[in-house]
């Protein structure tokens, strides 16, 4: 086993373990912090794949913004941070079964991708992945249309948020 595989397995265990903790711990703030750990593990996975940009953006967006907003919302809206009710529903086995089916399907699908066993070729020396990503986002034969549509959507969301938050002056 190479060092990379060991790191991958450890990170995978971190991601899955903390994801399970998110839905099982009773303290809501602990759940949010476990979510941070899980998201950080995903960032490490991106870093292993040499996707530097994705790894850093994962930390900036998911930990720096979304998780902190979660924690804020939990702290400001709940007086009691402990969840006291039952944690499972009576018919919990149906979603569990569906989840298992989905997992099986996904594993079969991924195993059937041609060349799944091949090791990925190393990135060419001197290739700036960030530059390549930036060029792809604005070049017409790549992702310029989805990129622009997404930015218009974001703008609409921003304007909507301002409209909803504005106090009626009348």
């Amino acid at each position: 086993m190479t060092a990379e595989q060991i790191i991958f397995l450890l990170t995978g265990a971190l991601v899955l373990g903390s994801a399970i903790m998110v839905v099982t711990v009773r303290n809501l703030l602990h759940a949010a912090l476990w979510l941070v750990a899980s998201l950080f593990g995903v960032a490490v996975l991106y870093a292993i794949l040499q996707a530097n940009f994705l790894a850093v953006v994962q930390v900036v967006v998911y930990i720096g913004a979304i998780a902190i907003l979660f924690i804020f919302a939990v702290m400001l809206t709940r007086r009691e941070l402990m969840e006291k009710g039952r944690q499972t529903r009576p018919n919990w086995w149906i979603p569990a079964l569906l989840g298992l089916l989905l997992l099986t399907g996904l594993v079969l699908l991924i195993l059937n991708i041609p060349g799944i066993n091949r090791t990925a070729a190393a990135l060419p020396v001197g290739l700036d992945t960030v530059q390549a990503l930036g060029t792809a986002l604005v070049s017409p034969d790549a992702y310029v249309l989805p990129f622009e549509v997404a930015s218009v959507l974001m703008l609409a969301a921003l304007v909507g948020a301002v409209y909803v938050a504005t106090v009626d002056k009348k």
Partner: protein
Amino acid sequence: MTFWNNPINFISTWLTGVLTGWRLPAALSTILLYVVGITVLIIFAMTLDIGLVWIERKVVARFQDRLGPNRIGPFGLIQPVADIIKMVIKEDITPDGADKIIYNIAPVLAATSVIVLWAILPLASTIYGVDLNVGLLYIVAAGALGTLAIIMAGWSSNNKYALLGAFRMVSNMISYEIPMVIILLVPTILANTMSVRGITQAQTGMWFAILSPLALLIFLISAIAELGRSPFDLNEAESEIVAGFHIEYTGMKFGWFYAGELLHAFTFGGFMAILFFGGYGGFFGLEKLAFFSWLNIPFVQALVFIAKAMFGYWVIMWIKYSVPRIRIDHMLAFNWKFLVPLSLVVLVNTAVLNKVLIFLPSWLYVLGMFGSNLVIGFVTVEILRAYGRKQRKAEQKPGPQTQTQEQAL
């Protein structure tokens, strides 16, 4: 390849030789080398941190017309050591209602969020941790971890003042992150890269401080806000909420917050030097002369870099000890209504002019960049002046608004 030209590579080659001489597998010796390198870097940063305690206390004393520490050792140089001994032997208290695990992780995370920044800090052309191609975003990501540490500390202490301090700090950091991110794009545009080392190398011709002085100013302001230092120190406003998020921490746990804050300030001084003052390379153009070629030796470059970083640190201290704290609504309004629009204007200006002026001779390019910044600055000051005049006129008129403002005061 000699020791003086490339010390890190020299030592690593030598150590690899030694380790493989001991019949260690190559992969294991690489990992060992990384561990050794990280440890040495952290020890260097923390040792510097001890010195920073002395520097900070001495500089504050000068600003406040005092002498500062002067009893232990020459010029009080051994004072920080005494401070550390005091902190280590103090009683270590975890409050009764505290969330023990989170309470104890928070100071470690706070210090870590600063130390990870040193991974990308290039001390010299051949002395650096790693050359990330997303270096500038990495700075923002490390800041996010710092925010998380403060929330954890404030919440787990089970103290209302701590929680209030944490809330204020987070609203502060989240809002000032926006001008910071926008303004980090200016060096990116000028250098055509986000790598910190690449930005340093792009400034061999001209410092970005001259190409975009407004960007430097906005970066300085948002860095101070990110550090939570005065005038943005609402998180630990001692006259209102005692000490803010670290109110319950004692001994070395408090020490980690304190050490982290000092090192953070110095590190941001370093980033200011890298992004706008040419980092390790460039000492007023002297390094290009044959007589001063010794300025290009890595160890001298590291000294130049530390001197520039100290200058940035000194400016941050200067502001901290001269400007009073501002109210939180003023702080947020200053960010959203002034800094964010201004940084957007500076960014658009840089992006457009950089493409237009690039065809001109270089002295015209520099002049155009500098002049456009001057124009933007002048217009901004004029708009502010007109706004202030309008506000004063509105206040002179007797009316309900004047009364409420007086009551608020």
